[in-house]
């Protein structure tokens, strides 16, 4: 059964390229949303296996969304993505409940698989 992924990012060009990459690598994209509130709603509606979550969102930030999603043990695996580096966010990356962090420019089937492994 293919892994279902929700893409959360407010930049349409990144969502498009991420969808293309994921689908080519055999994932199924359960949805694409731009904001924190939509992300929470889409997770409860579509129950994806993985959430690819941008850190900076127009109505909140990825750390808070990740923390909220990780409170549910049966919830999705959260992978944070950002055009900044993990170091730019200090301790927040490790403390928010996300499985891992991938710098957007290094996003590939391989880098994603190594976080999910």
């Amino acid at each position, binding site marked *: 059964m293919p892994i279902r992924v929700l893409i959360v990012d407010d930049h349409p060009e990144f969502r498009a390229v991420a969808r293309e990459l994921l689908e080519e690598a055999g994932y199924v994209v359960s949805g694409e949303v731009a904001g924190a509130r939509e992300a929470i709603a889409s997770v409860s509606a579509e129950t994806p296996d993985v959430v690819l979550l941008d850190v900076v969102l127009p109505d909140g930030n990825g750390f808070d969304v990740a923390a909220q999603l990780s409170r549910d043990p049966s919830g999705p695996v959260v992978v944070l993505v950002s*055009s900044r580096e993990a170091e730019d966010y*200090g301790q927040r990356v490790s403390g928010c409940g996300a499985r891992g962090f991938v710098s*957007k*420019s290094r996003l590939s089937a391989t880098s994603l698989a190594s976080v999910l492994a």
Partner: protein
Amino acid sequence: MISSADPVPAPTGSLLRDPVLVLPLAVVLGLVVGWEGLRTGVSGAVIAVDLALSWGLVGASMLASGRARWRRPRLLLALAGLLVLAGDLQWSSAPGLWTAGLILELAWLTVVVQLVLSFPDGRSWSALALVTISLGYLAAPVGGLASALVTTDSRDALSILSSQSAEDTIGRIRAALGFAVLLATVGLVVWRLASLRGASRRAQAQLLIGATLAFPLTMVWLARQALTGESPSTALSAVSTALIGLIPLGFVAAIGWSRLRRTQASDLVVELRTAGEPMLRDRLARVLGDPTLALAYRLDDGRYVDDSGQPASVPDRPGRAVTLLSAGDEVLAALVHDPVLLDEPALVESVRATAGLVLENERLAARVRAQLAEVRASRARLVTAGDEERRRIERDLHDGAQQRLVAVCVTLGMAAGRADPTLAETLRRAQDDLEQALAELRALARGIHPTLLHEEGLDAALETMARRAPLPVIIEGAIGSRLPAAIELAAYFLTMEALTNTAKHAGASKATVHLQQVNGTLTVTVSDDGIGGAELTPTGGLAGLRDRVEALDGTLNVHSDPATGTTVLAELPCGS
């Protein structure tokens, strides 16, 4: 010249407002009443005491003419003086006059109580004072009317229910009420004497001390009358009445004292002319005896500032008086002071005349301080505006170019995965170059505005900066809490500049960043073990940082020497 905000309207000249004719009236009435008393066998001593008190009260009232603020006390004094004579109408055997005298007996004492408890501006001191005054009027003359209705005396023209027992009871109730009123009055006076300070005390103490001494003997016979029903002996009554004369005496003494102060003013001129410390305001406050005095300099644009150039308000409210100090038509400054100083116009006037010379200098100094404060505020605003702009640029970079380049980078990676090995190799190289460019772009963005600092504070941001630095950096100390954004940014940027200089020029093996927050000051020290040679040049990066630090009222210093390396030390007041 001098102008004053006076809460009491000026006298308009009517008899009621400015009772110049009361004195001759009191003299004539006194002579008539006294003659009648002599004719009906009243003791000469009693007549003399009453006339002296009456004329003393009216005379004291006349002496205070020309004092707008004392208008109501003057009226009360004159009224009390006339009421002394009105009470003495009882000396007449004519029924109508006798009854009028009975009703008005001791009403003068209530008026004196009101005078004391509303001195000097005519407003009663407190709610308790108002109650005391009201009870006084209940004892006399309202109680006097009650007596007139029940008295058994054959001279009474108003008696509707002649009853000896009712008359006695009313007499004792009035005496008890009168005793309570005087007790409360003395209590209020003593309390006020103890709480008044400065100019107010100076202006009021004489009358208050007079009041403290004037009432006790009257209280003695009132208490006795309330308990036993016995009227005071002629002698006791005369002596106690004479003692009330201490109140108009106190009133006159207060006037005399303030006239005396006028001559003292000339000595103070010398003190005022001595320029220098302490501030002119403090000297004026001492000279005028008003510790609450505030001095506000008027700037050309009409705003007022204090000695230190901070904006000052010139309040237009009761309890404060404003005296404007001017040269020609130009207002130089405003004195905000206790309104009792208006009772000493000569003193204020001589201070005004003397202060003029000193004032011009002090006002110039205050203007310079105000301009300095303005420049500092505008510098701080410029820094804040600059920071806001940097933050916006960083966000634009992140949301715009960076996002598109990131998408291109991912696309290149995907293309490489699909291409044949030769093309894939080229595409991967392009992707690597692009990633390198993105990393440089991120570094640039961090230099413009550090997101981590904004999100996580100084400790986290400096830790990351230390990790990224091209030489080993040790961080000593931590802040543990968030500081104002401008402080955090200044500390961050100066550390970054210092570490960049160390890495580029110092040839150091390591650098140390020391953070300390003590007594509301953040101290940031960046030191290295390099070859020294760093200095603050007008166009250098450190000079720009010094401007930023000084805009926050902080200091930045650089010590650099080949033996000990370079130390950059910044102290930033951070309020907590």
